[in-house]
């Protein structure tokens, strides 16, 4: 059974690399259900990226525990896929090479690899760019390659670190809706980090608001929107505005101290 449940219990992360240790995350607990779209917002430097890397298994927790399907995280695994804010594509590989990489590493035969990769390249509207190198792509295209390569090897859990932060409004909206379609269709669990309150509310079922540095859980807000409607109807609805204001106020309490 391939489920995508994430549980963080009393997670603490201290960076010790520098002369003075930095506590990035302190006593943070939350649960993300299988197939849930879960967003994390918080002031800059509160430990959002750190949290994502802990779930991904790139970093180790200092104390507490993170479990994925009741197994403690002990390093990276193909059940989780990260979409990085800076794309992190292999510059020496073409779009096709980047998207097939994960499949090749997991022993998928060559023609099957290409077929699967092509499917996600098409889904992301990247057809025609299969043989292009990342340096020749725009930011939005790179981010779509990043998403395509992660979807291609089919991780149950998507971990996304401000993936659309650098894109302009129309492109961001298009990719958000694209992501929602994929999420519904493929039933992935998504942990989505953003600093954009509207984005968090529009996309997710629940939002975790973190306190300022060192980050801990401030509040988790349920978002109850009628998802059968289109973007315009959702965004202009009263529920949406209310929830957005609630998240904004909560976040604002944390940020106003710092400025």
């Amino acid at each position, binding site marked *: 059974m391939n489920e995508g449940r994430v549980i963080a219990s009393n997670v603490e992360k201290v960076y010790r690399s520098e002369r003075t240790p930095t506590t990035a995350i302190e006593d943070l607990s939350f649960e993300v259900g299988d197939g849930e779209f879960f967003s994390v917002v918080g002031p800059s430097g509160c430990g959002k990226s750190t949290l994502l890397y802990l779930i991904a298994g*790139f970093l180790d927790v200092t104390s507490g525990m993170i479990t994925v399907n009741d197994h403690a995280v002990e*390093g*990276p695994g193909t059940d989780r896929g*990260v979409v990085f804010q800076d794309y992190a594509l*292999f510059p020496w590989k073409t779009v096709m090479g980047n998207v097939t990489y994960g499949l090749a*590493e997991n022993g998928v035969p060559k023609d099957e690899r290409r077929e699967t990769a092509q499917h996600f390249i098409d889904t992301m509207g990247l057809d025609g760019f299969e043989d292009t190198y990342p*340096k020749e792509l725009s930011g939005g295209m790179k981010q779509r390659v990043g998403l395509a390569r992660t979807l291609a090897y089919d*991780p149950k859990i998507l971990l996304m670190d401000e993936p659309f932060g650098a894109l302009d409004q129309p492109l961001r909206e298009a990719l958000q809706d694209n992501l929602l379609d994929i999420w519904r269709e493929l039933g992935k669990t998504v942990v989505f980090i953003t600093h954009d309150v509207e984005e968090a509310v529009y996309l997710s079922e629940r939002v975790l608001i973190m306190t300022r540095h060192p980050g801990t859980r401030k509040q988790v807000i349920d978002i109850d929107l009628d998802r059968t409607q289109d973007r315009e109807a959702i965004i202009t609805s009263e529920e949406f505005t209310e929830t957005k204001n609630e998240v904004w106020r909560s976040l604002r309490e944390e940020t106003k101290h710092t400025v």
Partner: protein
Amino acid sequence: MDVTNIARISRHDVVEGAKSIYSLILLIALWELITQAGLIHYYFLPPLSDVLIEGYELTVSGEMIQASLLTLKRAFLGLLIATVLGVPIGILIARNRFVGWFFDPIITIGYPVPIISLIPVFMLWFGIGDVSKIILVGVGTFWPIAINARNSARAVNQNLIWSARMMGTPKRNLVWKVVVPDAAPGVLTGIQIALPLSLIITFVFEMVAGGGGLGHLEIQGVRSFTSTQTYATLIAIMLIGFVLDGTLRKIRRRLLRWA
């Protein structure tokens, strides 16, 4: 180059080509003019035309070609040894603490040593033959190659390594799959820096210790009062440096299309 291309060279191309090297044409004309007018003693600077005639004679007699091959062999074999040792060692220094602890002080001490000052020591130890020269070239070009390999392997983007890990690349394959390709541009830069150095070391060793080669041929001209030979050799050296540098650039462009 294919013939149709040559045929299509337009007047515009000729004008543009002349523009890009007009300073050289001017200098050459000046050289010929001043020397033909007898403004400089023949021994110090013979006219270019005499130098070219000498160069032609040395070429048809086989002397120039033999000297060039000898010099190229020494420089190339030395460079090859330095590359084969320097690239893996440089990368290992960056990736393995223990190798780093061992080699970092050696590089710190070894790199600034003016390699030419070791020629007498090498003559003591290894004599004045090919082996001595090749080893000195190897030692001298090892530093820039190893240092560039080390620095570029150290600068490998952490997110690329994490990307590979999440897609299933085991730790032991990271060097091949991520570090080497990401460091490749820097590694090639090191080799490009080492190339002229390998020629310099060979020339100087040949001038000091003899044993044939372009350096020997050049200084022989001074010693036998045939300065045309010195200048003809000098021009050959410049041409060789120019062609080799251009070849490396071409290889770089072909290999690193993505960069």
